């Protein structure tokens, strides 16, 4: 009998699988899931990846995560410091391969909103801000958006405000860059000629219909849709060891 795998662990593993062994990857602020995904990747299929922490350490020997993703203890035994402005220089050179970004809203074209709901001058809801989203979304070869509350209030027909640029808000030269959306229900991508969001994987215990019902637009389904690969016991233990305080659950409450 398999024990039920917790949603954060499923998401973390799905996020880790987006990283390739040759990649240079950066995480940002408020990012327990990306930090854990990067740690899983380098301990499994991507040992050669370059890991740049938002706390500025390069390839740290991470033993624990904290409520802040910039906590200097995340840099334990790092080989170097590489500042955010240097990581952004790298991104402009096209050499930052993958970045994880959050979203309060995401739409069918992959636009994200982390800025505000309502009027720009007098917002109904003031959101925290997009951080690096508007800079990195178009120019980074792969951006992975993680969303912990998949609902039709978050997955909307059109975002109220375009913070990060989807495929209908970017220049032709950047349309080849990939967006992947990983939610608590499944994994979505845009691998079709229209660059419209489609379900690629549904998490164990969830269905294509459930994902569609919780999405505020007509979500496509990839022809080869299948169940999300589940992490092994060893991987789950690794996640639990690094995140013994359960920081990863904070976004799900």
């Amino acid at each position: 009998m398999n024990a039920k795998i917790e949603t954060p662990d499923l998401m973390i593993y799905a996020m880790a699988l987006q990283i390739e062994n040759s990649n240079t990857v950066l995480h940002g602020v408020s990012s327990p899931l990306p930090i854990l995904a990067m740690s899983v990747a380098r301990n499994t299929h991507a040992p050669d990846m370059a890991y740049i922490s938002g706390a500025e350490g390069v390839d740290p020997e991470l033993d624990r995560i904290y409520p802040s993703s910039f906590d200097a203890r995340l840099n334990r035994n790092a080989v170097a410091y590489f500042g955010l402005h240097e990581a952004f220089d790298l991104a402009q050179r096209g050499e930052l391969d993958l970045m994880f970004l959050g979203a309060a809203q995401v739409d069918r074209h992959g636009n994200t909103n982390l800025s505000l709901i309502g009027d720009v001058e007098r917002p109904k809801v003031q959101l925290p801000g997009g951080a690096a989203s508007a800079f990195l979304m178009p120019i980074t070869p792969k951006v992975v958006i993680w969303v912990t509350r998949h609902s039709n209030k978050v997955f909307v027909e059109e975002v109220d405000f375009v913070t990060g640029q989807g495929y209908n808000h970017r220049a032709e030269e950047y349309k080849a860059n990939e967006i992947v959306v990983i939610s608590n229900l499944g994994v979505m991508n845009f691998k079709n000629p229209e660059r419209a969001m489609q379900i690629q994987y549904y998490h164990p215990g969830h269905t294509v219909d459930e994902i569609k019902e919780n999405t505020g637009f007509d979500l496509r389904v990839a022809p080869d849709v299948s169940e999300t690969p589940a992490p092994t016991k060893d991987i789950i233990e690794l996640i639990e060891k690094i995140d013994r305080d359960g920081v990863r659950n904070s976004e799900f409450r």
Partner: protein
Amino acid sequence: MKKVLTSLEEAARLVQDGDLVTFGGATFHRAPMEFVRELVRQGKKELNLIDREPAIDFDLLIGAGCVAKVRTGMLAFEVFGMAPNFRKKSEKGEIVTKEGACQPIIAGFRAAAMGLPSLPVKGMLGSDLLTISEVVGSQVEIQDPFTGETMIAVRAIEPDVAVIHAQKADEYGNIRIEGPFYEDVIKAKAAKKVVVTVEELIPNRDIRKMPEATTIPHFIVDAVVEIPKGAYPCSCFNYYDADYDHIKEYLKAAYQDQFAQYLDNNVYRRAVA
């Protein structure tokens, strides 16, 4: 070299009402919190705050009524959620929020540090953030004169005052930052005036033994203040970690309409070394 060692009270007087101010550090790390509390005690008004990813430093000043305008890439409390005073006052229209993005804000500081009027950055095109930025005229679409590539030119950001909390300095203002630098060195070079609060004063002869450790030399520093635990409740690498429990208490006070009490207990009545 001129001695620039002074008191916290004197150093905070370098900040005028209405000034454009930036702080060192990022989120809960190496923010100059005791200096921020002194700004509150001195009753500063109409401050114009700018930074890439601040947290409790900005939110405290906003909650204490010291702020007119805010420009950040993101202003939140990491996994603890929204910045409570920022959100409340922004939604009530009591402060003006001009959201930037991390890279243009850093590029603006870099331009000022290099003595340039602007600096081009990639990305940004297609984001609604440009419609906000264009209101304040800080970001304009340009074509590179050599390749024709379309980019965004970011206007230089020259703060009136940059305030940085570092680990060590001598009395002349030769500054050592240990661990992550964030954009602190860039901000120091970009600002008109630079105040550095430090955990520890060290003798000039120790500074001279390891000049490569001096990340900010004396001639760009206007004031140095020795304040042990000057970043608290934020962390200061090699000295202390962030006090996440205190940060949670701050949030609780703000959400339970007890922020005035928080200020009483932690800012106004706080004994300063």
